[in-house]
């Protein structure tokens, strides 16, 4: 039997297994985080890692990182990692959880990320009751970018964007995210905790674990808001910053549980028959409202999306001479209403029909009905690296400003198709071919000025000689619904081809 004195020291608290041993962010300092001394993010990271360890879910956890000081989650957590665009972590987490229902998905976000740019994403993820865990690190400021005011900034608090202190009259009031989201019916659990003193810190560790546990048990959306010190931007020592959380921040952001439906949902979950299909259900939290159909199998997706073999149009790939090298980079520019985008769409759709790689990228200003608009189209036999066309081999300029904007970008041996009788003399360049005709008037002769775009497209097709006529016809029919317009556009295309051929005869 062991005696009283037979005792030894064993490790009670040490680096969590869910952290990497070394952080490969930089060459040096691989044993330290990038956080400033005393940063609350580090504390929250440790609590999450510990909770993952304790729940035994490291091998199925997916961490969705934010933009902000918490951006480097993927360097620290030895789990599945995704880094979302600013504020979009709950949307990304939704996709992760729905496509991999067995995973444990954490959306890690700062207060700028979650409550400013990402306010829509968090609201709707919570309202849908996604079975994810959101860890919301609220330090009342945009820290990473040097201290701009966030929706959570306290009244009177100075920041680079509120140099005289936040003023409710001009900047609104601090946003209480936990309270707001608690008005929704779907969330399972919402709690605000702090890192202001030992008692608060211990409670934060419990709350974070609980938030994850809720997800493991399939109870639905959990959000843990952590009032977290940022000594650097607050310009306080780490200990002062900790006290500021307790003495000042907590007065504005009351700690506590704001929503807890875990008990009723646990009972519901217990009542459910063991159903292997139910694991694909995002959450048992809102079973009454949601269809309980399981997620479709991967093989069914093409059919659902309408891109299964049998759904796709026949295509005219066979008609394309296979020895011809094709690399069209077209920029089409004009003013709004001239049909610039449709021009590009027909071209791209026809390319697709002919079995080519294509890209179509519209680029237009905020004006819907006036102003300029242009689009980039690429057609190639090779895969396309970028949809941007910065040096076109064909420029279609539907008016003079558009010509002047892009004419210098056209490649040597390229073409400019210009809508105008007179091609401006100062735009003439060596080695660039020009087809300048009054396309608007020519379209008017066919019956409608608005068909000028198709006359110009006809000319382009004749110049390039790259696409089978059948592909063009099919593309036109798919994109233009009105039969009267299809008929007019077909004549316009033919007229364009003819005009180019006539121009050759004249030379």
């Amino acid at each position, binding site marked *: 039997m062991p005696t009283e004195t*037979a005792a030894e*020291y064993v490790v009670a*608290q040490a680096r969590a297994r869910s952290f990497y041993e070394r952080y490969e962010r930089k060459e040096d300092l691989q044993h330290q985080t990038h956080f400033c001394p005393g940063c*609350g993010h580090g504390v929250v990271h440790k609590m999450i890692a*510990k909770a993952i360890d304790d729940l*035994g879910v490291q091998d199925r956890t997916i961490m969705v990182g934010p933009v902000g000081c918490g951006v480097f989650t993927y360097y620290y957590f030895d789990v599945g990692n995704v880094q979302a665009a600013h504020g979009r972590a709950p949307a990304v987490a939704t996709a992760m959880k729905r496509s991999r229902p067995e995973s444990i998905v954490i959306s890690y976000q700062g207060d700028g990320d979650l409550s400013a740019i990402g306010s829509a994403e968090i609201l709707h993820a919570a309202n849908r009751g996604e079975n994810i865990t959101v860890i919301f690190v609220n330090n009342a400021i945009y820290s990473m970018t040097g201290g701009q005011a966030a929706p959570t900034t306290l009244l009177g608090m100075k920041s680079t964007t509120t140099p005289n202190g936040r003023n409710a009259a001009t900047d609104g009031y601090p946003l209480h995210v936990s309270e707001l989201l608690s008005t929704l019916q779907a969330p399972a659990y919402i709690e605000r905790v702090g890192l202001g003193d030992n008692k608060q810190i211990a409670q934060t560790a419990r709350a974070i674990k609980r938030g994850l546990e809720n997800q493991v048990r399939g109870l639905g959306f959990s959000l843990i808001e952590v009032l977290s010190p940022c*000594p650097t931007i607050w310009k306080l020592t780490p200990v002062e910053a900790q006290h500021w959380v307790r003495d000042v921040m907590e007065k504005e952001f009351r700690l506590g549980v704001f929503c807890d439906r875990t008990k009723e949902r646990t009972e519901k979950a217990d009542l459910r028959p063991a159903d292997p299909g139910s694991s694909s259900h995002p959450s048992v939290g809102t079973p009454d409202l949601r269809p309980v159909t399981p997620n479709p199998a991967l093989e069914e997706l093409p059919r659902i999306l309408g891109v299964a073999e049998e759904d796709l149009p026949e295509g005219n790939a066979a008609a394309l001479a296979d020895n011809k090298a094709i690399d069209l980079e077209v920029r089409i520019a004009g003013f709004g209403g001239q049909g610039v985008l449709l021009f590009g769409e027909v071209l791209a759709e026809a390319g697709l029909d002919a079995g080519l790689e294509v890209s179509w990228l519209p680029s237009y200003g905020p004006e819907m009905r006036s102003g300029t608009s242009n689009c980039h189209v690429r057609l190639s036999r090779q895969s396309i690296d970028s949809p941007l066309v910065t040096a076109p081999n064909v420029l279609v300029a539907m008016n003079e400003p558009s010509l002047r904007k892009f004419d210098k970008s056209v490649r040597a041996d390229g073409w400019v198709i210009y809508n105008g009788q007179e091609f401006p003399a100062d735009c003439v360049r060596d080695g660039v071919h020009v087809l300048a005709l009054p396309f608007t008037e020519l379209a008017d002769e066919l019956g409608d000025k608005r068909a000028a775009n198709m006359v110009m497209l006809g000319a382009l097709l004749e110049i390039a000689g790259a696409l089978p006529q059948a592909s063009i016809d099919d593309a036109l029919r798919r994109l233009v619904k009105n039969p009267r317009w299809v008929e007019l556009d077909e004549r316009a295309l033919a007229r364009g081809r003819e005009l180019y051929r006539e121009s050759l005869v004249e030379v």
Partner: protein
Amino acid sequence: MTEANKPDQKQDRGQLRIDEEECKGCGLCIEACPPKVISMNERLNHYGYRTALYAGAGCTGCGICFIACPEPGAITVYRLVRAREVEARVANAAEGGASECASN
């Protein structure tokens, strides 16, 4: 993983190890420690930080300094356990069981 203590003297319930290279000297562990057995080292580490220093005695093994510290592995807390518990823990660990929780 374990460290023996002299059996004749009264043993502390806990022990602390601070990784001087990982510690950033924020002082949050000093603030957190109930029996106040951590202080700031006068000496600077390799990176120019003053780092936390354990007094060498008086730790209760409560673990609160560990969770208050922002660095993943700057602090390791050990706790004194009797032999029977040691066996139980070893068995538990072998099953991949959870490690001890700090809040007591």
